[in-house]
């Protein structure tokens, strides 16, 4: 196992060196190829500031208030993509903010609104200073004058821990900009980047119509970078160890590691760090393997895709190969559905949740999504009327591309892939009523509790 080498740290990235000539540093590759979770393997607990600095040293912050192009080059060269769900190239996002006029704003997205994901919560718990380093580095990269960390109201302990971590860094004087910690309502669409911008500007945590996108006009009207906490933690390591080190895990077209949350019918559900491109079946093995023969896997989360289990296990976990299979990485979520469970009932519960969580601003979320959820409930309950399937398919097909955000698109994908993957169950429910699994114990962790109707958006 490679130990980190704090003494060889910030060598290159603050100088204008072409990236291809950067030396490959010995990076913090821990057991099982872990990078972000390395500290956890060493101590089994969260890394405080002293332990963090002992392992990684200080973040190599570039000089000056101007955007730092060498750092952006390094991120581009590394091929880092966003780990919040969209998998957009992070370097390109940094560049588009850095190239705007005037001081920028960095928003660190720790909202993790995907109920089947726990990886951001785990990362913030175990390695808060890696995230805060990444935030400071991203701020330096784009020439930011303010850094905002957004956390969900439902995680009070985490908020306290992060406030303490920020304060400790302040006392140690290692950040140029104080990180402002904000606590937002924890609804599904509140983590969307325009929701964060709107909330930080004094409004409700609901998505906004675009353009303008946040990189053009975001918080306080400034060019604004919104990045997921895991993305920034990777950035903190790229800044230290360079793009070649980052690319030494994963594959050329899907470099680096990523955090995944595995739940459902596996022996040890939890968060794992995997090299991108690891087959889904191997990821399930990391979680102890299936606890029961599997029927299907939900890939990506509540906005994700159902794949038949025999197909899913062979697909490498990378954006391109998941896309070819009709899925996407989302926020790194895998839910294993055992044989005997009812995928239609599971999907109906998730659609109900998504309908209740929508911001109800656009036609598809005010009418289309609730109608699809209702149709799916009828199908899952085995009470289809004659026109149900035609109506459902038409309504599912009319959701995508017609909202201010991608909420209806995600719900449509979930519904459409359920109808395809559980086609046999659809026939059973249509002709014979609900299958035995329809009344079984739920597999997908759909939150109960109050939603935006009760809690509001501010």
């Amino acid at each position, binding site marked *: 196992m490679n130990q980190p080498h704090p003494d060889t740290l910030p060598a290159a990235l603050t100088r204008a060196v072409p990236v291809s000539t950067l030396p490959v540093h010995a990076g913090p590759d821990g057991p099982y190829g872990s990078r972000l979770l390395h500290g956890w393997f060493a101590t089994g607990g969260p890394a405080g500031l002293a332990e963090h600095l002992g392992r990684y040293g200080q973040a190599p912050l570039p000089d000056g208030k101007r955007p730092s192009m060498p750092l952006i080059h390094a991120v581009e060269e590394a091929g880092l993509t966003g780990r919040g769900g969209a998998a957009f190239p992070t370097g390109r996002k940094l560049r588009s903010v850095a190239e705007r006029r005037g001081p920028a704003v960095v928003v660190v997205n720790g909202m993790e609104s995907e109920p089947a994901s726990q990886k951001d919560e785990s990362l913030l718990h175990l390695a808060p200073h890696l995230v805060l380093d990444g935030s400071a580095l991203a701020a330096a990269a784009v020439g930011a004058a303010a850094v905002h960390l957004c956390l969900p109201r439902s995680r009070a302990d985490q908020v306290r821990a992060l406030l303490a971590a920020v304060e400790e860094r302040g006392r140690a004087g290692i950040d140029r900009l104080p990180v402002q910690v904000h606590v937002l309502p924890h609804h599904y669409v509140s983590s969307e980047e325009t929701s964060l911008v709107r909330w930080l500007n004094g409004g409700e945590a609901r*998505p*906004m*119509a675009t353009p303008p996108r946040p990189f053009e006009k975001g918080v306080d009207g400034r060019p604004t970078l919104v990045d997921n906490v895991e993305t920034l933690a990777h950035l903190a390591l790229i800044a230290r160890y360079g793009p070649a080190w980052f690319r030494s895990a994963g594959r050329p077209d899907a470099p680096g590691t990523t955090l995944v949350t595995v739940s459902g019918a596996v022996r040890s559900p939890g968060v794992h760090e995997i090299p991108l491109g690891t087959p889904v079946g191997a990821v399930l093995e990391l979680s102890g393997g299936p606890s029961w023969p599997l029927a299907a896997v939900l890939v990506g989360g509540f906005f994700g895709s159902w794949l038949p289990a025999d197909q899913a296990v062979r697909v490498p976990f990378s954006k391109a190969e998941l896309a070819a299979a009709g899925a996407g990485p989302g926020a790194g979520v895998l839910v294993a559905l055992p044989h005997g469970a009812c995928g239609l009932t599971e999907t109906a519960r998730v659609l109900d949740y998504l309908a209740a969580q929508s911001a109800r*601003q*656009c*036609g*598809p979320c*005010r*009418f*289309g999504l609730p109608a699809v959820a209702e149709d799916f409930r009828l199908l899952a309950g085995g009470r289809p009327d004659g026109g149900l399937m035609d109506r459902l398919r038409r309504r599912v097909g*009319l959701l995508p591309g*017609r*909202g*201010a955000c991608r909420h209806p698109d995600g719900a449509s994908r979930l519904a459409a892939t359920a109808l395809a993957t559980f086609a046999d169950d659809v026939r059973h429910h249509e002709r014979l009523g609900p299958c035995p699994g329809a009344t079984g114990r739920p597999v997908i962790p759909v939150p109960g509790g109050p939603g935006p109707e009760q809690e509001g958006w501010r």
Partner: protein
Amino acid sequence: MTPRSSRTSRTAGHLLGIDRVACDGRGLCAELLPELVELDEWGYPVIHDARVPAELLTHARRAVAACPVLALRLDRARA
């Protein structure tokens, strides 16, 4: 399809855009520009192809001007 519509000239430089938050399904766009805008069962617009053919540009402008909540717009397509 009405005689006004033609697939061949869809390389024109304008795109029909909708502010989906502002839109509240009044439906005038579909009345004034049925070649490009349909309505779903709740009266909200469905646009299958946002490109505006040159011969529909005047009609599109009229529809944009008529939208009571200013949700419909014409964007210049990028080259």
